[in-house]
C-alpha cells in the first residue's frame, strides 16, 4: 500500500495543570454518581485528547450513566458500542476515515479514535474485539477505566475485581468466607504479551491527572494501537466515602495494589514507586467490600501483592528490553 499522509494529530506533553487545555470535552451534566472515579477519568482523557476525537463507548457505567435520555456529556463525536465490540467498532471507524481520507472525502485532521471501555468491556467480554483491533494495527487508543467490577449492573465481579472483594456475585458466606476467591487478570500484561503492533502501553490513576493526561497524549501520537489502563475507584461499588476517590487511587499505588508504568516498545519505565510500600490493609480498611475479610485473607492478598511488587522492583532496577519487533 502506498504511503499516504493521513494528517494524524500531534500532541505536546503538558508541563503543569495551568497548561492543560481549558476546553471541557466531557462536559458537566451527567448522571454518574457523586465522586465517580470513571467520570473524572473520562473528563481528564477528553480534556487531554481535545475535540477532534471520536469516542467509542461500549456499554458500561460510562454509557448508561452518561448518555441517559438522549442527552450526552460528550462534546466531541461519540458512538455507543455493545459491551462486546468496542475494539471492532473502533476498527471500522478508523478504517473508514483512512479510506475516506485517501479518496479525499475526509480532508481535516485524522480523528483521535478512542475506545473508553470498562474492565468488562476490556478483558472480559470485550477482550476478543480489543485484541483483534490491536493485532490489526489500527490507529486506535484503547482505554480501560478500571473500577474493578460490573458496576452499572449493580457491582458484579469482573476479571479485575481483586481477591477478597464482596460483590453481588461474590457475596461472602459461611462456605465462601472471603467473597471473591480468584485473583484478577492483568490487562496491560495481556496486551504487552501478545500484540506486536502495540508499541505503547501505560498505567495510571485518577489521582495522577497530569500523568494521566500526558499518557493519553503520548499514546495518541503513535500511529498504531495503544493501550492505557487506568484505576478509577468506584465509591458505590467499593463502598468508601465518595470524597476519597482520589485518595483510594493514591493508596493503591502506595500499597502496591497498583503500579504506575509506561511500556514503550519493550522498555519499562516505572514512576511513583514508593520507597517503602504500605501494607495492603491500609488500602483495604477504607473499603466496605473488604470489611468481611479475616486476617488470613488479608495475608493472602499481601502475599499476592508482594509477588507483584517483586517483579516491579526487578524491572525498576534493570529495564528489560524485549526483542525489537519488525513492522
Amino acid at each position, binding site marked *: 500500500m502506498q504511503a499516504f499522509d493521513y494528517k494524524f494529530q500531534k500532541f505536546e506533553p503538558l508541563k503543569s495543570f495551568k497548561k492543560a487545555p481549558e476546553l471541557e470535552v466531557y462536559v458537566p451534566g451527567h448522571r454518574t454518581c457523586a465522586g465517580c472515579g470513571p467520570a473524572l477519568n473520562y473528563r481528564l482523557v477528553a480534556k487531554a485528547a481535545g475535540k477532534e476525537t471520536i469516542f467509542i463507548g461500549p456499554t458500561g457505567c460510562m454509557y448508561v450513566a452518561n448518555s441517559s435520555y438522549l442527552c450526552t456529556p*460528550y462534546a466531541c463525536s461519540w458512538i455507543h458500542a455493545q459491551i462486546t465490540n468496542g475494539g471492532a467498532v473502533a476498527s*471500522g471507524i478508523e*478504517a473508514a476515515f483512512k479510506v475516506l481520507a485517501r479518496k479525499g472525502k475526509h480532508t481535516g485532521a485524522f*480523528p483521535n479514535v478512542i475506545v473508553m471501555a470498562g474492565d468488562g468491556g476490556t478483558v472480559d467480554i470485550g477482550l476478543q474485539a480489543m485484541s483483534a483491533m490491536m493485532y490489526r494495527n489500527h490507529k486506535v487508543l484503547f482505554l480501560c477505566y478500571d473500577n474493578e467490577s460490573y458496576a452499572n449492573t449493580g457491582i458484579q465481579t469482573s476479571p479485575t475485581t481483586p481477591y477478597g472483594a464482596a460483590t453481588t456475585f461474590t457475596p461472602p458466606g459461611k462456605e465462601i468466607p472471603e467473597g471473591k476467591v480468584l485473583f484478577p487478570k492483568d490487562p496491560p500484561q495481556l496486551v504487552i504479551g501478545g500484540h506486536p503492533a502495540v508499541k505503547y502501553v501505560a498505567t495510571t490513576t485518577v489521582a495522577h491527572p497530569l500523568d494521566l493526561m500526558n499518557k493519553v497524549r503520548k499514546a495518541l501520537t503513535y500511529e498504531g494501537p495503544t493501550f492505557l489502563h487506568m484505576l478509577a475507584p468506584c465509591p458505590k461499588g467499593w463502598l468508601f466515602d465518595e470524597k476519597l476517590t482520589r485518595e483510594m487511587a493514591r493508596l493503591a499505588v502506595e500499597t502496591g495494589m497498583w503500579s504506575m508504568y509506561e511500556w514503550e516498545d519493550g522498555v519499562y519505565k516505572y514512576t511513583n514507586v514508593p520507597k517503602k510500600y504500605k501494607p495492603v490493609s491500609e488500602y483495604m480498611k477504607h473499603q466496605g467490600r473488604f470489611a468481611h475479610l479475616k486476617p488470613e485473607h488479608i495475608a493472602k492478598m499481601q502475599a499476592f501483592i508482594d509477588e507483584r511488587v517483586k517483579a516491579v522492583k526487578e524491572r525498576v532496577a534493570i529495564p528489560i528490553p524485549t526483542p525489537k519487533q519488525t513492522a
Partner: protein
Amino acid sequence: MAKEQMMTGCRAAAEGAKAAEVEVICSYPIRPYTAIMMELSKMVANGELNAEFVHGEGEHAQVSVVLGACASGARAFTGSSGVGVTYAMEVYSPMAGGRYPAQMSIADRTLDPPGDFGSEHTDAMSTRDQGWLLGWACSPQEVYDNTLIAYRVGEDHRVMLPQMVCQDGYFISHIPDKVTLGDQSQVKEFLPPYRPIGPLSTTHPVSHGPQIRPDQGAPMDAMRAQTFLAVPKVIEEATADFNRIFGRNYDPFVEQYKLEDAEIAFFIQGAHANTCRSSVDRLRSQGVKAGMARLRWVRPWPTHQLANALGHVKAVGVIETSTSYGGAMRGGNLIHELRASLYDLDERPLVTSFMGGLGGETIWPKDFDYMAKVLLQAVKEKKIRTYVQWLGM
C-alpha cells in the same frame, strides 16, 4: 455493454461490491460465502478497489466493523454463512436501529449441529425480525443485481437500513452461470454515492445511540416500523430504474411464472426456483396448470403482491428451505406469512407446505411432481390433509 461471462454467485457478489465501490470490507472465513471475500481481497491487493480490507476476528466483529465504518460515512460490505450469521446476532438490531445501511452478503448454510456445509435458509431467516432488509437471489446474475439494488434501497434517505443479500450456498455461490456485469456508467447512473445522515465527524460532533427512557422506546420502534411502510415504494422505484438502466425484467417483489391461469402454484425462494420453473414447464406439458411465485424480498414482506399473485390459485405448496421448529404449521416460516397474507381474501387458496432443500439437499424434478400430485389431490378434495410434509420422509 459488457459481455456475458461465466461466474459463481460468490464472484458475482464480489463484482457487485466492486461496482458499488465499497470502501470498508470486513471478512471472516466460513464456507461457503468465503469466496466472496477471497475475490474482494484480490481486488484490493491488485489496486482495482480502493478500500480498507479488515480481517475481522469473527462475524460479530464483522458486523461491528461495518457498523463503525458506516457510522463514519463509508460504504461498507461484509458477509457470512450459517452459524456465522447467527454469531453476529447481537449487532443486527443496533445496526438497523442506528440506521446504518451497510450490506451483508449471505451464502446460506445449514446451522450446527453437527457441521453441515449444505445450503439451508434458516441462518438468514432467523434474523428476519431484526429490522434489516432481507431478500434472496436465485442466480449469480441476480446476486450481482441485488447487491446494487439493495445498496440503492438501503441508502435511500427514506430508508437508511442495512441489507442482507442472500444466495443459496453451493447451488448459487459455487456453480458458475452466465452473468452480465454492468459497466461503470450504468452503475453510476443507478447508484448514487452513500450520503450518511449525521455521521461521526470532527467538525460536527454528534452522539450516536445514547440511552432512551422506556417511554421513548415505543416511538423509536414506531418510527422504524414507519420506515418499513415506505420501503416498498423505494424498492419499486429502484427495481424499475435497474430494469431500465441494465435492461432486465425483475418484478420488484415476486417473480410470477405462469401464474395467470394456474390452478396449483409453488411458492418458493432462492436457488430451487430454477428446478421449480422447469418443473412447471414439464407439468404444463402434461396438462397440469402449474405456476410459480418466487419471493425476492422476505423483509419487507410483500403481503398484497402475494395476495394478488396467488389469490386466484386453487392450491399453493410452500417450499420451505428453512425450519421453524414448533411453529404454527410445524414446518418452516414462509407458510405462516403466506397464509396470513391470503387470509382476508374472500376465496383463499388451500395452502400446504413441503420441507425440502434442507441441509443442502437437492429438490429434484420428481419432488416437484410429487408436490403437484399432493396439490391436485387437495384441489380435488377441497382440503389439505396436513399443514406440512417432509419431502422423501
